[in-house]
């Protein structure tokens, strides 16, 4: 099984690469990017429809596009890419052969067939039930069946990942503990098993209901279990993109965690507490008690938030320590000023880190507060929040690591270097705008998933403030900027993968300021950073903390102004 011909040795990092794992990574990553393109176009059409002056799509197409957008980017793009990340973090980083590559292909084909089936159902027009498909709203049976196949495929991918960990340990392809990046991927995979099982558990009866075998699905129970998939799958993203942050820091700058113990504990908190987040979607529902809401919405006293706040210090801290070790010691921020901002992998990673924390993280905790949720629930503030986490956080991080995977795994040189350099900034700017303006409109009460806030065809009228219309227009403009950034990414990646200069078998690629060997050592082994002075990070974290506290209490003040309820 471990015949030498199955492997090649990467000239840049010295890692031993299993060709079957490499092919699986390529296949999953390529399909992921295709779904990003499709879902992204749907997204742009939605933003342009919600811009009242443009109002691009008719109502039925708008709701169809919204359903497709949710599935294609939130599930298909991200989970296909995560499968690539799992194979990378197991077989590649551990120098191991991949366990059961045939099952790996089963994962790929099942997910692809499932994703296509659901897309077909949506495009046929009778499954515009939104990505969430809350009963008693009913979709065509193959809408649910596609989702179930997709979830089962992804579960198989997780099994192959765990199998590879066992193989690597048995065959002693690494010594001691797994590297931190792999540890993060394990976190993601454990959460994924919970998530995908929830999806299957609720979608199978819903499928049976849609073909008339069972008589009904309780809407509240559906919501509780469905969000065990819907929200927890976003926690897979968090774990995966935090792992990607560490990987990029390591590969580009040779950064090592400030202390392994702390970073791993933070991942452990994700495993233990992140699954409670289904409650975020049930804060204004009937039939759920306040004590249940308070415990679950806070992830058991905010212990999972604590995990993210720790990564929020250790990731920039690791980068600062690595930079200071290279001599960028002047003042508080020379290490940051002289960071490789022209390297799209680093720029994308750092923007992802900052926007995930400031925009996505803070808004998420605030709107997940039991009582504050009632001034935010189902307003367009909600998509504002999750575009900051899933797009600015996860998608931008995945885009960033693509710039490293193209030379290392696809073994092609990245083309259009200037375009690639600007891509994270253009995309990041667009997404920041989308998130902020949607949150702004949501604060003014604008509903999400709504075709016409002028209510032209409604039986009774209501007028939103002109500021709400302005926010939606700015959101539309931001979506155009983001779409340009997304197109830049797709053009660079697709052209590089198919037309880029082939990298020779013995050719060493320069990933960043540090040598490839140093990159590999940083990413594929564990150990604490020696340097202990990170004053710049302390300042950044303090700014974050003050913003968090202020914004949190501002929202309590907003809440205190609405009609008394009890």
């Amino acid at each position, binding site marked *: 099984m471990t015949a030498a011909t199955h492997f090649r040795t990467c000239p840049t990092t*010295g890692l031993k690469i299993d060709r079957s794992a490499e092919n699986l990574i390529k296949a999953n990553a390529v399909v992921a990017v295709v779904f990003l393109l499709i879902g992204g176009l749907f997204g742009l059409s939605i933003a342009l429809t919600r811009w009242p002056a443009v109002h691009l799509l008719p*109502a039925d197409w708008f709701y169809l596009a919204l359903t497709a957008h949710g599935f294609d980017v939130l599930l298909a793009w991200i989970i296909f890419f995560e499968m690539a990340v799992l194979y990378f973090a197991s077989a590649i980083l551990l120098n191991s052969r991949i366990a059961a590559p045939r099952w790996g292909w089963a994962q790929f084909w099942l997910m692809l067939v499932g994703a296509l089936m659901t897309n077909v159902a949506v495009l046929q027009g009778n499954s515009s*039930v939104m990505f969430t498909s*809350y009963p008693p*709203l009913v979709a065509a049976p193959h809408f649910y069946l596609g989702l179930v196949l997709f979830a089962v495929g992804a579960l198989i991918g997780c099994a192959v990942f765990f199998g590879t960990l066992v193989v690597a340990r048995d065959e002693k392809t690494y*010594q*001691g*503990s797994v590297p931190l990046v792999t540890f993060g991927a394990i976190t993601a995979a454990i959460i994924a098993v919970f998530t995908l099982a929830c999806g299957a558990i609720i979608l199978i009866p819903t499928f049976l209901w849609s073909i008339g075998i069972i008589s009904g699905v*309780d*809407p*509240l129970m559906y919501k509780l279990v469905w969000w065990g998939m819907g929200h927890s799958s976003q926690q897979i993203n968090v774990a995966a993109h935090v792992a990607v942050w560490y990987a990029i820091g390591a590969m580009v700058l040779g950064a090592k965690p400030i202390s*392994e113990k*702390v970073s791993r504990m933070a991942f452990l908190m994700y495993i233990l507490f992140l699954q409670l987040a289904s409650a975020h979607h049930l804060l*204004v*529902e*009937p*039939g759920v*008690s*306040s004590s249940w809401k308070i415990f679950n919405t*806070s992830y058991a*006293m905010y*212990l999972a938030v*604590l995990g993210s706040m*720790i990564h929020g210090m250790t990731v920039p*801290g690791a980068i600062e320590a690595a930079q200071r070790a290279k001599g960028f010691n002047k003042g508080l921020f020379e290490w940051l000023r002289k960071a490789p901002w022209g390297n799209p992998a680093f720029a994308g990673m750092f923007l992802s880190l900052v926007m995930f924390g400031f925009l996505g993280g803070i808004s998420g905790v605030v709107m997940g*507060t039991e*009582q504050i949720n*009632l*001034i935010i*629930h*189902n*307003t367009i503030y909600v998509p504002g929040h999750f575009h900051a986490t899933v797009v600015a956080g996860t998608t931008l991080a995945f885009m960033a690591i693509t710039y490293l995977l193209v030379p290392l795994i696809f073994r092609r040189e990245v083309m259009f270097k200037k375009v690639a350099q600007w891509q994270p900034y253009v995309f990041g700017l667009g997404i920041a705008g989308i998130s902020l303006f949607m949150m702004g409109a949501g604060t003014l*009460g604008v*509903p999400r*998933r*709504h*075709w016409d806030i002028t*209510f032209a065809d*409604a*039986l*009774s*009228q*209501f007028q*939103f403030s002109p500021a709400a219309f302005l926010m939606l227009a700015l959101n539309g403009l931001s979506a155009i900027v983001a779409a340009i950034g997304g197109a830049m990414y797709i053009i660079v990646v697709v052209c590089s993968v198919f037309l880029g200069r082939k990298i020779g078998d013995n050719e060493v690629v320069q990933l960043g300021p540090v040598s490839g*060997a140093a990159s*590999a*050592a940083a990413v*594929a*082994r*564990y*150990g*604490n950073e020696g340097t202990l002075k990170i004053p710049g990070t302390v300042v950044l974290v303090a700014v974050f903390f003050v913003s*968090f*506290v202020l914004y949190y209490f501002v929202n309590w003040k907003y809440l*205190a102004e*609405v*009609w*008394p*309820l*009890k």
Partner: protein
Amino acid sequence: MGIASPRAGWWKEPIHKVELIWIIVAFLWGLGMFFMMIYWHGVGNQNLSNEAYRITPAAYAAKVDKMTEEYTVRQEGAFPVVRPPPGSDVYMMGRVYMWWPMLELVKGETYRLHLSSIDLQHGFSLQPVNINLQVHPGYESVVTMTPNQTGQFGIVCNEYCGFGHHTMTGRIYVVDNK
């Protein structure tokens, strides 16, 4: 090379002081946010009740009809405007595609507002006050509400409920007690 042998005993290495301080600060902040929710249940004026019942759509529609028959004060287009006595139980029903009926409430008075749907899930979004509650078929929830401003307030549906979702609206009037 790729894998160099690990530094033994990384789990025994002390935690960097600055990290430790941040962990403690973040942990305490989390506790603070946790107890803030409980504190608000004691002192805050905006809390949701835990009162809810299972009910069939037909039974709920009957309750709404009874209130409408008894207290309708005028008609506005398709909607009856209902003015139940202050302090009483008032009913609002979600259905495709309207919030039924319109209510007229008195400022400063307290009402027990019942919410349910007779078909799909709907989102009760009172604007521009910005109170947003989820409404399920088969469940009747009750929230005690005290309007503290007069005027005309829109109810928008903010849970997707089919191709006519964006036409689903309703209204609550709040008037001074004359």
